[in-house]
């Protein structure tokens, strides 16, 4: 469960989140959509406790992040896996990148780690790339390695920032299927940011639309498709006519 209550955040005089309240119920796929620079990635960082809001409350599994110090936040973050929009892969080979959270969280044998890394790579359609260096790979490949790293420790909450950016339609669909299958299998709580609105709505249970730091829509996927709000309508249906 993730809950934000009237969250405000600004960088200098650039107001990025301007009173956002939303709730992601447990075992739900929540799609966060919105135009560029709306504050979507910043909102993920607030949920993960990487950025502290200027005001408002953030709850992860009924625990408020505000009063926690960095060491206590680290404990909450163990429940969260995150795919970064800009990959944020480490200067290590692919296998070490993906295995990193496993090594930090559990004491597994090398065989077990190698097995789980291979399984992840299989799932993101990059088998056999263990020894490659991420810096030498394409944007879409790095994205998928990020997905593998975010999910290998099977966290109960996963945040995917643009999981299909830079991917062809077939691989995109594979990634969406992966997100959905694993969410259903483990009842995880998932938030997905995506510019591929049509694609992400095929797997989402609920949708939120962020625009200029405000949540202008929050509801089920069907409500989103039927919304009469001009901005939401325009965005969900990809129209050029409208307020955006």
């Amino acid at each position: 469960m993730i809950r934000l209550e009237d969250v405000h955040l600004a960088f200098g005089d650039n107001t990025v989140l301007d009173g956002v309240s939303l709730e992601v119920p447990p075992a739900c796929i929540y799609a966060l959509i919105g135009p560029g620079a709306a504050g979507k990635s910043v909102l993920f960082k607030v949920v993960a406790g990487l950025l502290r809001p200027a005001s408002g409350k953030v709850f992860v599994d009924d625990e408020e992040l505000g009063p926690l110090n960095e060491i206590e936040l680290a404990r909450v973050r163990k429940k969260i896996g995150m795919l970064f929009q800009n990959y944020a892969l480490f200067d290590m080979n692919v296998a070490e990148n993906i295995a990193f959270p496993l090594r930090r969280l559990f004491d597994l044998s090398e065989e077990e780690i190698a097995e789980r890394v291979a399984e992840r790579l299989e799932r993101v359609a990059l088998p056999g790339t263990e020894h490659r260096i991420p810096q030498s790979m394409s944007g879409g490949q790095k994205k998928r390695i990020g997905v593998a790293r975010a999910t290998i420790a099977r966290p109960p909450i996963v945040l995917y920032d643009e999981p299909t950016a830079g991917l062809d339609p077939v691989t995109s669909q594979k990634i969406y299927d992966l997100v959905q299958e694993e969410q259903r299998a483990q009842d995880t709580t998932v938030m997905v940011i995506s510019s591929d609105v049509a694609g992400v709505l095929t797997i989402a249970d609920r949708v939120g639309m962020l625009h200029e730091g405000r949540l202008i829509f929050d509801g089920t996927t069907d409500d989103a498709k039927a919304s009469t709000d001009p901005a939401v309508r325009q965005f969900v249906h990809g129209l050029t006519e409208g307020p955006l």
Partner: protein
Amino acid sequence: MAFTARAENVSPLAALKNVLQDALAVARVGRRTMHYLIRGKREPGSVARQMFAIGNQSLFFMCITMAFIGAIITFQTGLQSKKLVPDFSMIGATYLKLLIRDLAASVGALPLATRVGAGIAAEIGSMVVTEQVDALRMCAADPVDYLVVPRFIASVIMGTVILIIGGFVAYGSGMLVAQLMFDVSPHTFTNLSLVTMGDLVLGVSKAVTYGGAIALVSGQRGLATFGGSEGVGWATTEAVVGSCFAIIVLNLVISTIGYFFVPAL
């Protein structure tokens, strides 16, 4: 950061406030460093890698610098003392006391800070701007635990070792200058009669403290990086300036304590 151009044109009072805020931020990183020093999860080889990096980066540079510093101090001391007492028999004894009690650590720590501090801040800072530090935080690796602690341990150990080696080099170059310029034989120069155990303890405590301070200040600066690759440049400058300032303040503190508890004969 209080001393660099990103904070220029502030009133003296605001500047003092900035210094205190920076000190507080470093203290917080220090607290977390101590926490993880005990409870953290060490990656095998991480400390050794950092020790090698620090030694490899700075040993040669430090030896050259300390050789010149030793030569200059001996030469200037010789010139001045010639005017007061035309007797060089104690030049080695006073020089060694000064070197062990303070100079080897305190003067050597400044060039060490430029080399080691800049390296730590640049490395951590570039990980911040590429969001790798955020990724570490999401992968159950507190950046203080994963990045600062191994650098802290390595800087304390390797920094002390390098400062001691630098002290020996300064001793050697001082001896050479004394021989060549003032006809003081190495035998007369090597006079430990004024050096006490207390001096040695004081000198080594300084070296250890400076090594730790360089890592904490530079680590904190690196982690506080913002604003792309230009921000990494700022963080690096601030790390060097901040480390040097910390060394000077800590020298004052430790020397004051030493003045009362480890009297200089």
